């Protein structure tokens, strides 16, 4: 069948044989998979209901797209910190005693305008720069919750209850400081897999090059985990109809943790969660406060981002403890103010 192979001699023949063997080996799985896909494909898509899949893809894409600018902002800030801000700045600004540094760092969260995607890489770079982990964690929790953009959004979403803004500010600050102190008392260094610099500090590399490498590394790393979190959040978003929650709106003691859980699985951006909370009519103001306090601190995409940056052992422990503290604090503050 290969008429001209003979002319090239046995070498050409052997090559042709090897190529066709490779083609067969490579082609077989393709043909098999293709067959399975053609055979099962329609059944699978039928079973999944096209429209649910389309809705999942839309929500997934939406969470990633609205996260990317904030993630980029966060990684630019964190790369700036690691490349241009010398370590002594932080030791000079923050009190030496970690117990005092925690509230200062928590209050400093007000200056980073952005949602929660931005704060994780920044907290990582702060730790790399020698800031006490407890203080960096307080900053991590408070930054997305108490910055001016979020507070203004809260005010717009709750035009009739200005106390909601104050309650959110106080409860969020309280939670982040409490978690910082809790870390000092109960935290262990070995849970925290401190982020390494992407290349270490190459002696010859310029500042700008260091900035570029660390920006690229941090963005791609956190971006990958953002995708994981967005996929999980989109799954819950499409699978669980919100009306299920109405079942729990009657009892205060059930609705508080229920809305806390909802905040975790919906993973709404902290700049938008006030509007979602405002739409949860039928729930008590305290339960809605819990939704807004938990949301920026614990949610699926944050857990994914944190386990990427600080390690899974840390993310699981820290997130669950934060959730409990956040629900308690919002219950207290809500009982006091709302």
């Amino acid at each position, binding site marked *: 069948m290969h008429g001209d192979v003979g002319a090239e001699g046995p070498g050409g023949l052997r090559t042709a044989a090897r190529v066709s063997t490779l083609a067969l080996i490579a082609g077989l799985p393709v043909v098999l998979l293709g067959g399975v896909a053609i055979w099962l494909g329609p059944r699978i898509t039928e079973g999944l209901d096209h*429209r*649910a899949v*389309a*809705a999942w*893809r*839309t*929500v*997934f*894409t*939406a*969470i*990633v*797209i*609205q996260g*990317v*600018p904030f993630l*980029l902002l966060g990684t*630019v800030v964190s790369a700036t910190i690691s490349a241009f801000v010398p370590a002594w700045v932080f030791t000079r600004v923050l009190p030496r005693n970690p117990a005092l540094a925690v509230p200062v760092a928590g209050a400093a969260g007000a200056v980073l305008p952005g949602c929660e995607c931005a704060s994780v890489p920044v907290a990582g770079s702060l730790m790399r720069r020698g800031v006490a982990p407890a203080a960096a964690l307080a900053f991590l929790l408070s930054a997305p919750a108490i910055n001016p953009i979020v507070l203004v959004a809260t005010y717009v*979403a709750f*035009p*009739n209850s200005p106390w909601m803004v104050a309650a959110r500010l106080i409860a969020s600050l309280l939670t982040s400081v409490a978690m910082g102190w809790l870390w000092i008392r109960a935290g262990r260094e070995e849970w925290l897999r401190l982020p*390494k610099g*992407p*290349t270490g500090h*190459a002696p*010859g590399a310029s500042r700008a*090059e260091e900035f*570029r490498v660390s*920006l*690229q*590394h941090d*963005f*791609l*790393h956190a*971006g*990958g*985990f953002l*995708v*994981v979190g*967005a996929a999980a*959040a989109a799954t819950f*978003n*499409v699978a669980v*109809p*919100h*009306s299920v929650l*109405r079942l729990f709106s009657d009892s205060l003691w059930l609705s508080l943790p229920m809305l806390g859980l909802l905040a975790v699985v*919906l*993973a*709404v*951006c902290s*700049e*938008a*969660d006030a*509007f*979602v909370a*405002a*739409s949860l*009519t039928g729930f008590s103001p305290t339960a809605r406060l819990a939704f807004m306090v938990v949301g920026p601190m614990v949610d699926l995409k944050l857990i994914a981002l944190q386990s*990427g940056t600080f390690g899974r052992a840390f993310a699981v422990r820290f997130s669950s403890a934060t959730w409990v503290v956040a629900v308690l604090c919002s219950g207290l503050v809500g009982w006091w103010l709302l």
Partner: protein
Amino acid sequence: MKRNVQVLLLLFLGVGLLHISLLTDLYLRYVRAGLRPALIASGVLLIALGAVSAARDGFPFNRPRAEGGQGHDDGHGHAGGPKVAWLLYVPALTILFLAPPALGSYTASRDEAEAPKAPSSASSSGESLFPALPDTGVAPMSLNDFSARAVWDTDGTLEGHTVRLTGFVTPGRHGAWYVSRLVISCCAADAQVRKVRVHGAPAPPADTWVAVTGTWHPTGKAGTGNASPALDATAVRRVPEPKDPYHDMG
């Protein structure tokens, strides 16, 4: 992840962001309009980062490093960059080639419409919260405005007026159908449902965009929160899908 693959990813993601925000309006299917400048800036920054990286690291083939490579392959994927970053190719290629549609009747049919908020200062100010509708012709209204009036307006400003509502078709139970909208405050993950039941017209196919002209169909007692918005349709006309599907207007 190799450095040349990282460069490719940065460029894909940057071009994808510019594609949906600068060249087309596809971003409106996913996020609010106000995020456009941030998306464009991110796209430009990612492309710039990709270009610089391409120049420094070599593209499409890695340039061997002068100092002998990264030198610390510590076995958890940091050698050339994080492995998890591969996942970013999914949204990057999705927005470039397979942009999913805006949310539609599937989402709208699964949630109850959020009850429009009770008007705030009804008791304090004596005058009506709902300004009177124009007396002549057809008044285009947002679903939100119509629903709020239908549920809370005790002065009956809707009575005797012909209104036009625009939205997509969501089928309900027992042949009922709704003209509906999804309203987002940040991204499609926080979409809230607005829907008005349509009486007196056969249901068009789900997800068709229609302009429904008709008069208010009173249900329940207004002002108590147990009324629901409904319309007696006189005409149902197909309209093209609006540029921003989440912007609720008449």
